[in-house]
């Protein structure tokens, strides 16, 4: 900085030769203060805008998703009509119709020859009822001919009506449920057949083609398994690599190359890692597509540079006096590092590792490349079986056409964000509690 750049017109009012008149000087000063205020306001506005974005983003997702946690269940006594159940072919029985019959009895309506009414009723009750009946009958055949109480969720569209997403004021042909169905729903609600409750199924079920049955359990387990693989690879390799570069490596061209390389790797777009995973792990090594194993491997490669960088900076923060003291009492280089320096750096290392895992948890694009977009109706059984993970589940549901899935997408995002906040909070607590300032 030279003086020249400091004295544009107006900044140096003290120049004695051309001292402006009193009023002119005041005007100039006013102008300068005005521009000062303006600049400050611009800065403030930028922050306000950024905060508004944050509030709108989070608020909008919570507003869209919270209703998923509420669900409407329906309890109906079902008469297991022996005429309709073929004991020799239990799987082939139309249980949905049996449920519809029970509902018709409850509502006091008759089916016509075309089955219009029963069809309309089947649009209101989840297929889960039929499944439950099948399981019951399979377990205990003596139930046939008796009446059993079955509880299950209403179908997604009916749920949306109860939540006010489908409105009666909409023209009948523009909504999925007609007036008669809405009347039935109102009656069921009024007489207490339909109960409102907390949606535990969303947490215990896995993906399903029917929105009211779909949940995040499979995705949560898939994410956990994938992160386990990532952590098992990225943390040891990353920490040891950082120890080498920071404590052992001689300063020469090779270590320079490694260093530049790591910094550049950290900025490679995540989708490129997906391409790497596809070419290397799937096409070349034949790791099963879409498995937690291959996902974990790809994310481990992606997390590696960040773990290395975080570990190096916390190793740097350990003062040299520690090393000198250890070396002074006769410890070898390796003993110094592994008995003293690394344990002291550990809080920082773990913070960095958790943060990079949290980042990996939210990563989607590379996983799409390695075949994690399939519909997986259950939690993965092992590391090589097909899996889905939370962010990919969000992506899949977002693409679904049913409106009820949009609500579930937002709810899955809430679950994802809760996990990320938990991980970040752990990192912050670790840092606050254990980090030492020298």
């Amino acid at each position, binding site marked *: 900085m030279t003086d020249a750049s400091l004295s544009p017109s107006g900044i140096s009012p003290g120049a004695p030769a051309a001292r402006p008149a009193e009023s002119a000087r005041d005007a100039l000063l006013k102008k300068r203060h005005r521009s000062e205020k303006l600049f*400050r306001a611009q*800065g403030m506005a930028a922050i306000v805008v950024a905060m508004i*974005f944050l509030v709108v983003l989070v608020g909008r997702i919570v507003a869209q998703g919270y209703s998923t946690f509420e669900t409407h269940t329906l309890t109906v006594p079902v008469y297991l009509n022996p005429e309709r159940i073929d004991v020799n072919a239990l799987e082939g029985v139309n249980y949905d119709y049996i449920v519809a019959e029970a509902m018709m009895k409850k509502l006091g309506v008759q089916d016509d020859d075309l089955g219009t009414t029963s069809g309309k009723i089947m649009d209101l009750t989840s297929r889960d009822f039929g499944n439950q009946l099948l399981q019951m009958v399979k377990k205990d055949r003596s139930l046939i001919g008796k009446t059993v109480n079955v509880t299950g969720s209403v179908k997604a569209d009916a749920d949306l009506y109860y939540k006010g997403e489908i409105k009666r004021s909409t023209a009948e042909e523009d909504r999925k449920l007609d007036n008669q169905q809405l009347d039935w729903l109102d009656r069921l609600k009024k007489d207490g057949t339909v109960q409102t409750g907390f949606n535990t199924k969303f947490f215990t079920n896995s993906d399903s083609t029917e929105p009211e049955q779909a949940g995040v359990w499979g995705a949560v387990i898939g994410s956990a398994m994938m992160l386990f693989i990532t952590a098992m690879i990225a943390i040891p390799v990353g920490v040891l690599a950082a120890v080498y570069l920071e404590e052992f490596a001689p300063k020469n061209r090779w270590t320079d190359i490694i260093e530049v390389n790591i910094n550049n790797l950290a900025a490679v777009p995540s989708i490129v890692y997906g391409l790497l995973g596809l070419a290397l792990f799937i096409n070349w090594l034949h790791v099963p597509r879409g498995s937690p194993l291959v996902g974990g491997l790809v994310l481990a490669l992606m997390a590696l540079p960040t773990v290395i960088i975080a570990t190096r900076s916390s190793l740097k923060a350990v003062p040299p006096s520690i090393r000198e003291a250890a070396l002074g009492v006769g410890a070898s280089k390796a003993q110094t590092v592994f008995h003293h320096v690394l344990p002291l750096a550990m809080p920082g290392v773990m913070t960095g590792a958790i943060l990079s895992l949290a980042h990996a948890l939210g990563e989607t694009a590379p996983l799409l490349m390695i075949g994690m977009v399939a519909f997986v109706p259950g939690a993965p059984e092992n590391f090589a079986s097909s899996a889905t993970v939370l962010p990919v589940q969000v992506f899949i549901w977002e693409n679904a056409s049913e409106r009820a899935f949009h609500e579930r997408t937002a709810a899955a995002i809430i679950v994802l964000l809760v996990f990320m906040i938990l991980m970040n909070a752990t990192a912050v607590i670790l840092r606050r509690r254990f980090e030492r300032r020298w």
Partner: protein
Amino acid sequence: MLTWLSLLFLALFSGAAFMAGRSRALKSSGGSKAKLHSLPNYYGLYAALWAGAPAALLLLLGATFGGRVEDAMLQAQRPAAVQALTPDRQDVFFSDVNAVATGQAASEVSYDGPLRAAFDAKVVEAKRIDGIVSYSVLGLAGLLALAGFLLATPRINTEFRARNRVEGWIAGVLIACSIAAVLTTLGIVMSLIYESWRFFESVSPLSFLFGTEWAPQIAMRADQVASSGAFGAVPLFAGTFLVMLIAMLVAAPIGLYSAIYLSEYAGRSMRATIKPLLEILAGVPTVVYGFFAALTVGPLFRAFFNGIGEQMAGGPLDGIAQYLMQVQNQMALVAGVVMGIMLIPFVSSLSDDIINAVPQSLRDGSYAMGATKSETVKKVVLPAALPGIMAAMLLAVSRAVGETMIVTMAAGLQAKLTANPLDTVTTVTVQIVTLLTGDQEFDSPKTLSAFGLGLTLFVVTLGLNIIALRIVQKYREQYD
């Protein structure tokens, strides 16, 4: 399963070697630790490492590459009936053989006549080969473990420098780990170049880089070799550039201004609240931004522009009004704005660091000359921080170019050469995702073109990073 079991055995064996090595060392010194060169545990570790490590490495290599070796052995001889099949069907044949041999479900292809006989023979052979390979790996690993143990333990005596040896092993592991990072880069470069090479065999690089028509779906079948026009990536580059530009128009001013405010004006408590909030914005996964763009911002913008169009309809600008009324949810503007929001914390935290690195003495000098705060920022701090801020902007651009989920969910799929932010555009990353999700065969130019795009993306982002680093190195003012 076999690998895990043998690894467990190996761990037990290596633990036993540890005890043996340790007790041998203590015995040789008559039970006195002081007479040994190293601590007793180092002798144990020395023996355990030789007993365990080479064998474990072999087992892991066997688990990783064993399948490939088996496949190669199995496919070395192809019966005439199999050779009569097309290459694709031959692959199916062999994958079915493997599936049946390992007791998994095969594809639904049925094999009759001579093919059936060949199939059954190959299944038997596959089982035999699998047995040979896995047992020879196991046997070899066992031999290695035993040999390591038998060679290592006799060397243990009081004079033996066990600690130095063990530390040699440690150094080796550390170097291997840091090479892993280099191998990752190498893997990225090699796989991108290799697959792109295969792509450029059927499509010339020039028509890829400068062609103006992108329609990979046309060239779906193998016999319908890509017409050179179908793989012109210019519309993708243009779309990427447009979205990036919009994102930077949002992120650069907001990010920079908030960094200036936070570092120059805000008090300690405000910094302490705003910075973590910005970090939250930075930590939100991109798929969430994508959801936000597709289901909130998109419909909002659409309603806004449609509304303007309706207001203007019938007026002097009727043509524009008609266009505005037909604007869709998916447009470059939506993706760009949401991506800009995503980049705000990135730009802001980088710029914040850079502005804070400008020494206080420069500010004090400026204040002493009577400059106001904003004058100091504009005429002293920002010029001093300019190279760093430029670098930060370039890094943000590189992030915007490589960002995938927001554009996939909000920008659209149509490859159009347009500068209209209200139009749907497609980007390089969107096309990579679309080309590679779902089922794919690996010899069609359609899927391979994704690697060509990936290579371009990699080169561009790498170039931006290198330029950013260069700018910082070259123009940074040394103040101390």
